[in-house]
């Protein structure tokens, strides 16, 4: 088990380094090949050549690629000092550089906004796991009944309806018409109930999409597992049906769901951005959209790295859970 953990951890670190290098490649080399000058886009198109040159020197854009890569890499872990044209800027670790637009350091913006996105994602994940699993298991056990058909129709709706539609619909119904929920975002340190109230609709909206998918997968997996020989063995022992389901069938059903969860946490980012825009949450989402529109490379890069890190950690957790559930994984 320990060896398995160490191996996973090591693999995660290697993965992180690879991600950083690939991200560097995409954002610093691709514009170069595309004929876009990063220094120019940093300073602005109308800037005079001298200031462009100063920025180029300050950012080290004239250096050989591997030197730039190293600087980029080092900045993330040790910070970086930009100096050029008599003008020195200290960027503390972790340094992702400065936004082209706001000229703010990227990292503080990320740390300010990331927790909101994280809370949205985690909250939604918890919700969809609970509801998706419950609905899936119930459907599997009541196969062919009205309940099963109903749940699967809802699930189909969840999978096919776009987030901004369900989001706006829930806003219109629960917040505006019924007035049950105040959908204004309130920071957590101000009021927990206010924060919770503000998050609940976004959570549900985001979770709806995934819960639907998980319900379908859970149903299919559960049905397959219930036909397994070892479930028959469990029944042959004289176990009560609910114990058979809870202890024997559920544990096996979790394995494919975990695999999915590991992958979905990465894809979740897209859904989170849409949800945040729909509900005007001050998470990364709005900023990312802006950054993409403005080709704010350092910011996009920071977001990509921080989300990669989150996905990496999430997958590490999933891997560990996987090994806890399935003893055969520990050997591999």
């Amino acid at each position, binding site marked *: 088990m320990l060896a398995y953990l160490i*191996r996973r951890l*090591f*693999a995660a670190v*290697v993965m992180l380094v690879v991600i950083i290098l690939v991200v560097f490649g995409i954002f610093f080399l691709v514009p170069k090949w595309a004929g876009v000058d990063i220094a120019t886009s940093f300073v602005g198109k109308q800037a005079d050549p001298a200031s462009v040159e100063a920025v180029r020197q300050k950012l080290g854009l004239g250096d050989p690629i591997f030197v730039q890569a190293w600087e980029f890499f080092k900045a993330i872990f040790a910070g970086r000092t930009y100096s050029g044209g008599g003008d020195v800027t200290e960027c503390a670790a972790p340094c992702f550089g400065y936004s082209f637009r706001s000229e703010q350091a990227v990292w503080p913006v990320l740390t300010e906004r990331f927790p909101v996105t994280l809370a949205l994602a985690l909250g939604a994940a918890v919700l969809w796991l609970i509801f998706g699993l419950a609905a899936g298991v119930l459907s599997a056990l009541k196969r062919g009944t009205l309940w099963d058909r109903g749940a699967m129709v809802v699930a189909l709706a969840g999978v096919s309806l776009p987030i901004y539609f369900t989001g706006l619909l829930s806003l219109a119904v629960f917040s505006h018409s019924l007035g049950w929920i105040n959908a204004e975002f309130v920071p957590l340190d101000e009021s927990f109930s206010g924060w919770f109230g503000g998050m609940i609709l976004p959570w549900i909206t985001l979770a709806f999409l995934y819960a639907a998918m998980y319900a379908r997968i859970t149903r299919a997996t559960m049905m397959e597992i219930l036909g397994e020989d070892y479930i028959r063995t469990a029944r042959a022992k004289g176990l009560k049906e609910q114990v058979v389901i809870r202890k024997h069938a559920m544990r096996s059903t979790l394995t494919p769901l975990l695999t999915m969860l590991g992958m979905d946490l990465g894809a979740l980012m897209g859904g989170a951005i849409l949800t945040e825009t729909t509900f005007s949450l001050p998470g990364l989402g709005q900023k990312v959209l802006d950054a993409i529109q403005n080709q704010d490379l350092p910011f996009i890069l920071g977001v990509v790295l921080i989300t990669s890190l989150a996905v990496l950690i999430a997958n590490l957790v999933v891997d560990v859970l996987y090994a806890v559930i399935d003893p055969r994984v520990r050997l591999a």
Partner: protein
Amino acid sequence: MTIPAQSSGATLTKDAAPGETLLKVTGLQKHFPIKKGLLQRQVGAVRAVDGIDFEVRSGETLGVVGESGCGKSTMGRLITRLLEPTAGKVEFEGKDITHLGVGGMRPLRRDVQMIFQDPYSSLNPRHTIGTIVSAPFKLQGVEPEGGVKKEVQRLLSVVGLNPEHYNRYPHEFSGGQRQRIGIARALALNPKLVVADEPVSALDVSIQAQVVNLLDDLQTELGLTYVIIAHDLSVVRHVSDRIAVMYLGKIMELADRDLLYKTPMHPYTKALMSAVPIPDPARRGAKSERILLKGDVPSPIAPPSGCRFHTRCWKATQICTTTEPPLKELRPGQQVACHHPENFEDQAPQDVVLLTAAKEAAELVSEDALAESAATSAAVAAEVEAIAEANDEMTAPSTVAAPDEATAASTDDVTATSTDEPGEEAAAPATSSTDAPATSKTDTPEAPVAPEVTDEEPPAKEK
């Protein structure tokens, strides 16, 4: 080798005359590497097939038996070149095909065909029977006389299916019928060698017999050569002329069918055969005949040293742990890799102390079986010797072990004999089994011990 320009798929003429060696395998090995860690370093290998030699003669059926994991299926895939051997040589009609690529194998694919175990997964469910059986013609670019469709329908009727079912899909057929389709496909190009991997084990008993009989008829009719791989000893006995017994990637015994079943020489062969349940209630619990083997087959990743069977053998002595016995022809038509064979004189008589493991194993073997084994060994030793002396063979051992001494363990019996040539030869480290045929000529008395079997002709099937 020349490929006949087969204009007709129905031609029955064969290149190789009956009795000629069609397939020759020497020192064949297949190791599957085990890789571990991030860098996928090779940390070991599954030695699925670990140095085997045999020949398949034209027109005969070679049966290959063994338990799961003994490498018999891998061997089948190696000789049909679905896998590439790690080492050794495969010759088909004298041509080395060991490392031929896909293109190089193409002409040979029409001469060597395979029948698979599972009639459900080996046929593409989306193709009609016509498409499946005619695929070999398309792949080889052969246009049979009278057109593909006619030929396919002929093949279907040959294997006992209705030719009008040409346009049906596999799921419309039962397991036995699907296996017939698989056989029709294998026969399409009029192959010389058909390798069948567990052709009947997925079928019901009554259907098994149909397919076994069909294979039998096709051989008579088309002069096919078979290599039939199976775990069921009774099926193998029924279909084979010669039988190879495999254990952990090695051939333990390779002998003519009747010799093998009447007088098995390798203890493993004997144990294997005694384990088959006999459908006769009168023999229920006939423990006197049964040899139970201790524990499980060891891992092919780290097979035991010396003789691979020594960890479970009740006759194992020191030499078995250190020296691998070569596959030697101890009697015409019977090759055995054992230091202390059953039904024959001991090959390492100087080595008498049983291993502890062997003593434990012997507890599972009934007294009767032990006594019988001792008796037959001694009797055969005496007989061999008598013949040898009569023929003035210089290599024969010089002592006489009377059969009535046989109540003692066979190993004890031979203690009385002086260590003579056969023993020394066997004791000499014979790591490569490739030289077994060579040595066998010198130490096997040429006198016909089993006169009904001669070396040159393949034993004709009793018809």
